[in-house]
């Protein structure tokens, strides 16, 4: 071992520590948290009210509706993204020439780089308040993520089966369907399911900017200091994401691993 590496590690550690202290100073955090400490009693009251979720039947049925709406947003948004992701992944893997590749890659990067919540503020303008705006926002961001993964799967797929079919006179579309699709479809499904698991969590949040679902209810509950209702809603979100994890695991076993 050369003595250079530990010295470099030391320099890096010092730099990182300096960054942390600079950050604390920058945000004036000590004052902020001290202020929070003043309201420590308030915090405890807040948490105490959290500990007793609202379980009145009327509220629960509203939560149930919100949960189904959230499920719908996540599922439809992911499905739209799968379709759009495939449509953009085909040119992005270079199947329609260099120009198509550059254009579609740029679009995928743009879609992926803008967070769902930013998309949601735009789709709320385009589609009005409500679950459809949330669905679109999820679909836009997820298209960018899935499109890139799908294009990578296409590029890594063995080319021989499709080339052999083309060589035997098959049309381009049929050769793709019989030669390459069987190799990439399981991966595409797996990525779609994985994104669905993430999107159910995101769909529960998009309501914060007016895009429907459980998030909208949680935003109101917290704004109006209804901690008991907020607690119920948070538990509902957790249960919903566990349910989707289980569903997607089941689908994965049936469609991908089998």
């Amino acid at each position: 071992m050369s003595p250079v590496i530990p010295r470099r590690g030391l320099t890096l550690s010092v730099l990182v520590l300096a960054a942390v202290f600079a950050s604390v100073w920058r945000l004036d955090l000590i004052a902020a948290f001290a202020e929070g400490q003043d309201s420590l009693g308030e915090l405890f009251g807040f948490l105490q009210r959290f500990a007793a979720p609202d379980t009145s039947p009327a509220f629960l049925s509203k939560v149930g509706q919100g949960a189904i709406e959230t499920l719908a947003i996540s599922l439809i948004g992911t499905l739209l993204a799968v379709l759009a992701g495939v449509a953009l992944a085909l040119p992005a893997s270079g199947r329609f020439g260099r120009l198509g590749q550059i254009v579609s890659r740029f679009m995928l990067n743009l879609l992926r780089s803008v967070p769902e919540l930013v998309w949601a503020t735009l789709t709320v303008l385009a589609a009005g308040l409500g679950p459809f705006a949330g669905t679109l926002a999820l679909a836009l961001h997820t298209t960018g993520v899935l499109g890139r993964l799908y294009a990578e799967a296409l590029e890594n797929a063995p080319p021989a089966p499709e080339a052999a079919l083309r060589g035997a006179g098959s049309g381009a579309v049929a050769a793709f369907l019989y030669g390459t699709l069987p190799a990439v479809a399981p991966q595409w499904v797996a990525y779609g399911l994985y994104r669905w698991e993430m999107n159910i969590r995101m769909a529960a949040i998009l309501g914060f900017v007016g895009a429907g679902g459980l998030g909208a209810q949680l935003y109101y509950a917290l704004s109006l200091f209804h901690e008991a209702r907020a607690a119920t809603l948070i538990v509902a979100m957790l249960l919903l994401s566990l349910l989707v994890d289980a569903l997607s695991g089941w689908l994965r076993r049936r469609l991908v691993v089998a």
Partner: protein
Amino acid sequence: MISLAALSVAYAGGRRALDGVDLSIAPGERVALIGPSGAGKTTLLRVMGANLRPTGGQLQLDGLDPWALNARQLQGLRGRVGKMYQAPPIPPRQRVITAVLAGRLGQWPLWRAVASLIYPLDIDGARAALAPFDLAERLFDRCDQLSGGQLQRVALARLFYQQPQLVLADEPVSALDPTLARSVAVALNEDAKRRGATLIASLHAVELALSEFSRVIGLREGRIVFDRPAAQLGVADIEALYAGVPYASAPEAHNPDAPSARPRLTRCA
């Protein structure tokens, strides 16, 4: 059926894979191509299958120059040519029936190809094509449940289902054990004989070439060394063809499944 005149293929670096080949093959002939690795067998088969454009000389398939045809006509021509490879180009997760039916994609309209993916349209045809290989029972199994030998026979069934007038087989038996290799070579020849189709196969196993095929062409360094009926070939011819290289060198290991790097799945994408 096929005629080549002064045909050559040169690669970008200037290396000539084929160098002034004159050849004519009549309908119904069964030709074996032999020669050491790198002799140009695969290139010759690719040229005859209209998959590789020659850089010089003339090529005629069925009296046509494939490279003067428009895209549609070229596709039609390729549909009448069946091909076999050392590694069957079949996606592992495809079902046997789909893999067999894919043999007729060149003849089917697109709607039929798509419909057949949803529900296989010619179950009887696929079953009949598989029957000679004792694989009819595996019709609805997935290809990754088959052994390598079974998979090569599925590729053969696909070829029989296509019923091409010209069969081009590139090392079809090199990856199989000797017994299986012989049975596949016999099946290819029987089928060609029965339908009057032309068969051209490259082989590493010289004894198979001599015993099963009617005509044997020896290639070395892109040129034809001999071209004779199998019965007229002697040991001296074979030894001259392979002089200086291992007699029946093992085929180069080529791995069709390149390691597919899975993109990393992370929670913040």
